[in-house]
């Protein structure tokens, strides 16, 4: 371990908060909710105004938070909000407006069990909301799924980079377990915030004040002319296609010789990694495919592995949402089952391994 490295033990939520500061964030607007309140708490004690000049504001509600983000993003600033499931539902209108105006921003959902107020315990039941839309209109966000505290930190910078590269909203889909647990985090050097002059130069679309040499920049999603609106929508779709072509990320562990496959993201992927080890100790060749981007989803990798393995078990803390994308990828090539716990319960590694054995190995005897 080199001495210059800044290594700390942090909660996932704190690591994300430190990550946005170091990635040169200009403003955070949020409203506290368990299990992500440590984000605002951590930012509040960091004296960000003195540290980097970053604004941290507790808004009066989640709806206000997302619209503060909307305003900041319109000015070309690196802005963030975070919340947990019920709060993210409140933000959907603002997110849709940002999709319609192509404004980059970073959002984080530390998912808890629903529907409604549900529970404060971890869940993954907001997959559809994050990946398939959430707000109204034909749009997609880039959705990153961290499975460790280090990734909670790393994805802050990655999220900003992607958001500005494509002028798109990036959602970090975490969950209560990743947000609350502590692990080792390696921190990077502070990236300076952009100056106003740099923003004007880098982001000519931003509302930075009209100058004599250009037309007025107008940020609006409204165009009552359907022909123009269709052109705009086609442009959005081309962008989502570019994202699908270039930004798929996943991690595969022991997939080379795998006969059975877990597909899981976030904290479920950690549980599956342990279940995979327990299975391999018993001589069952299990692999793990962990999607890191949920949009764009690693369909091609699923398709490739579906031809190799004898069965796929998707494990999610939901009634079965990501499994629909796994089925699309596999396209009928292999038997796929889902296992999930609901309402804030995290499955245990031995439980997950049992389900795999029941579904794919013990059933073979009768086949």
């Amino acid at each position, binding site marked *: *371990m080199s001495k210059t490295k800044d*290594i700390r*033990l942090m909660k996932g939520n704190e690591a994300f908060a430190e990550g946005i500061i170091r990635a040169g964030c200009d403003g955070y607007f949020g409203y506290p909710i*368990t*299990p992500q309140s440590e984000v605002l708490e951590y930012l509040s004690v960091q004296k960000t105004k003195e540290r980097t000049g970053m604004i941290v504001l507790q808004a009066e509600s989640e709806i206000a938070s997302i619209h503060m983000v909307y305003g900041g993003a319109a000015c070309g600033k690196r802005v963030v909000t975070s919340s947990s499931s019920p709060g993210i539902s409140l933000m959907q209108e603002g997110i849709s407006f940002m999709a319609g105006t192509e404004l980059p921003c970073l959002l984080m959902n530390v998912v808890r069990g629903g529907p409604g107020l549900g*529970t*404060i*315990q971890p869940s993954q039941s907001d997959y559809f909301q994050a990946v398939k839309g959430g707000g109204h209109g034909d749009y997609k966000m880039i959705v990153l799924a961290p499975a460790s505290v280090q990734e909670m930190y790393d994805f802050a910078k990655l999220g900003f980079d992607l958001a500005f590269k494509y002028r798109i909203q990036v959602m970090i889909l975490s969950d*209560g*377990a990743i947000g*609350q*647990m*502590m*692990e*080792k985090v390696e921190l990077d050097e502070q990236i300076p915030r952009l100056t106003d002059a740099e923003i004007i130069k880098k982001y000519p679309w931003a509302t930075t004040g009209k100058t004599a040499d250009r037309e007025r920049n107008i940020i609006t999603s409204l165009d009552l002319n359907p022909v123009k609106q269709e052109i705009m929508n086609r442009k959005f779709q081309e962008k989502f296609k570019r994202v699908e072509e270039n930004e798929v990320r996943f991690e595969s562990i022991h997939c080379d010789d795998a006969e059975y496959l877990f597909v899981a993201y976030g*904290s479920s992927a*950690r*549980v599956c*990694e*342990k*279940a*995979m*080890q327990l299975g391999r100790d018993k001589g069952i060749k299990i692999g793990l495919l962990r999607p890191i981007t949920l949009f764009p989803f690693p369909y091609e990798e699923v398709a490739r592995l579906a031809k190799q393995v004898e069965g796929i078990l998707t494990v999610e803390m939901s009634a079965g949402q990501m499994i629909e994308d796994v089925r699309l990828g596999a396209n009928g090539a292999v038997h796929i089952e889902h296992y999930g716990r609901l309402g804030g319960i*995290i499955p*245990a*590694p*031995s*439980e997950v391994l049992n389900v795999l054995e029941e579904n794919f190995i013990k059933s073979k005897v009768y086949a």
Partner: protein
Amino acid sequence: MTEEIIIAGFGGQGILSMGKILAYAGMMQSKEVSWFPSYGPEMRGGTANVTVIISDERISSPILNQFDTAIILNQQSMDKFENSVKKGGLLIYDPNGITHHPVRTDIDIYTVDAAYESSRMKSSKVFNMVVLGAFLKLKPLIDPEHMHQGLEKSLPVRHHNMIAENERAIEKGKEIIIPKHLLN
């Protein structure tokens, strides 16, 4: 080496801090570590528990249902976790307030009279460090130098004057841990 530990008891006993100090010390010794707490309604006025993993390798699941070591500090946690210790594993508990003592014969069971000892030291705050010392006596995973660094990193600077007292409590825990069958 991978050591999977559950620490469980009442909120306020310093369960989460003990886990954090252990995890931080492990990190200072260049181990991989994870710390996963119970949070929410369970914590508010009731029981608290934390899963700590210390390993030489990448840690897979921070969330477990079987443990190498259980450190149990109240009856509810004893009822909940006695059967979660792996066969051949270790259970350490403070007998103070325990009415149903553990009965398993396939694990090692030790007691540490930490509540009594910390009151004798006139500092109930170091209760959790007495317990931690007891654990370190049986599982010397972390050397004293890195325990010291773990305390430094976990405690806010304004409490650094209490590090020496905490270290004394750790040493006391190492002295007073006894196998359950020697318990009067």
